[in-house]
């Protein structure tokens, strides 16, 4: 398809240690369209994060193919915790990606400063991370990820370290930022409600070794921001279906 920014086919991953071999991903195939927000959901330990690690080339796949539309596709990876460097100011933290890629120039720096301004962090730019709340730190982490102008954003449970209330607020926040900047996003989460409220598609994985159980197109009437989407009439229906797919057993 023309519109696919990323095509993953028959992805496989084994983990090895001395005493055993674990098959994390059995056979994963899916496409991501441009400017789409896709969530990957599945039981804990099923290898959701492994997919992101492979996409960001932190880990090598054991088999299968990953095809980006453009060779020069830039990937931004937002981790579970913010991992802001305590010895760097907020601005310096946001510039780390540009420094590493040797693309730190006046223009890119101004872009980061404009992001900080737009998302209400400009006045904190010379402060250190420990003076910020958890939610603000997560927003800084997102701006750090956006600074390198990624084509695809990978989000690994970006809200899971926050308390419930900040989570709802930051979820809205992050969603709006990603939409406004016109980015493609792949989010891994174990939070069903979060997944339904932000995504246009949800990929449900099975237990390890993971295969794709089902892919849902999420169609909500009157889709707005995530917090609002939770109140749409289709929301509980999707919740029930996916919950059954997840087959949670205690």
């Amino acid at each position, binding site marked *: 398809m023309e519109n696919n920014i990323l095509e993953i086919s028959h992805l496989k991953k084994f983990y090895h240690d001395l005493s055993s071999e674990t098959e994390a991903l059995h056979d994963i195939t899916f496409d991501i369209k441009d400017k789409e927000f896709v969530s990957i959901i599945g039981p804990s330990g099923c290898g959701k994060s492994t997919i992101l690690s492979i996409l960001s*080339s932190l880990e090598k796949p054991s088999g299968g193919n990953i095809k980006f539309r453009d060779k020069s596709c830039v990937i931004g*990876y937002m*981790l579970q*915790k913010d*991992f802001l*460097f305590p*010895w760097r100011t907020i601005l310096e933290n946001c510039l780390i990606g540009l*420094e*590493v*890629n040797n693309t730190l120039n006046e223009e890119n720096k101004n872009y980061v400063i404009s992001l900080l301004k737009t998302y209400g962090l400009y006045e904190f730019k010379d402060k250190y991370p420990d003076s910020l709340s958890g939610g603000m730190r997560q927003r800084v982490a997102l701006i750090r990820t956006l600074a390198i102008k990624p084509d695809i954003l990978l989000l690994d449970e970006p809200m899971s370290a926050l308390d419930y209330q900040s989570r709802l607020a930051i979820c809205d926040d992050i969603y709006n930022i990603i939409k406004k900047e016109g980015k493609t996003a792949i989010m891994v989460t174990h939070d069903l409600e979060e997944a339904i409220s932000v995504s246009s598609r949800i990929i449900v994985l099975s237990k390890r070794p993971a295969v794709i159980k089902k892919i849902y197109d999420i169609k909500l009437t009157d889709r707005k921001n995530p917090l609002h989407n939770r109140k749409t009439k289709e929301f509980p229906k999707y919740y029930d279906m996916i919950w059954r797919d997840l087959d949670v057993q205690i």
Partner: protein
Amino acid sequence: MYKYSKEHLEYLKQIKRKKIFIMIMRISIIVLFLVGWEVLARLNLINTFLSSSPSKVISTIDSLIQESNLFSHIGITLFEVIVSFLVASIIGVLVATILWWNDTIAKIVDPYLTILNSLPKVALGPIIIIWVGASTNSIIFMALLISTFISIINVYNGFISTDIGFINLLKSLNASKKQIFLKVILPSNYKTLVNCLKINISMSLIGVIMGELLVSKKGLGYLIMYGSQVFNINLVITSVVILGVISYLMYFIISKLEEKIKN
């Protein structure tokens, strides 16, 4: 101006009071010790020939300055300490960096580092003299043997216990190993490095004195050795007192430097 509540002022006062109390206690301990020592000596309850006394220490210092150039003894010891401190710190950080860079080398040399570190270096004294010669060099060599391995081990352990999340973050940005080292490993190990310097300064002092006891014609270690050979306990105790003051001063300087860099 903002006015603090009564409770807050009380809280500040309490902290200040505690600080003063600690200071007073610190000073009283040393004063009590010195006065007690002097009184016992004056009342002839202890034998000053064997255990000296504060006033004798002072007069010994005075005569050392007049007759045998005390400052050049202190100078030579300080020089040796500073040289071995610098060399040990540089080697320590350098080797730790290499080991961090190449995990295989680290695994290969690990048992040897442990052996070299736990070896009683003073046992090597005679060999060092034969190999390096009876000079300042063998004193510095001895000090290096004592301080280098422990700093390699400390710094390396700091490097490898860096939060993996920080490293993964840089890896996801396609950072090179050099960038990971400069942007994550070094800054996040600032505390480890300062602590290593602190340990190193006392290790170097211990090493230099040990070296001077074995072979020297000058320095505080020499004074101690000479004092014990001619049974001049006064000289020995005086030198030990000076050593104590020097080691405290050096520690103090490093701590002040640390504060200054922090700000």
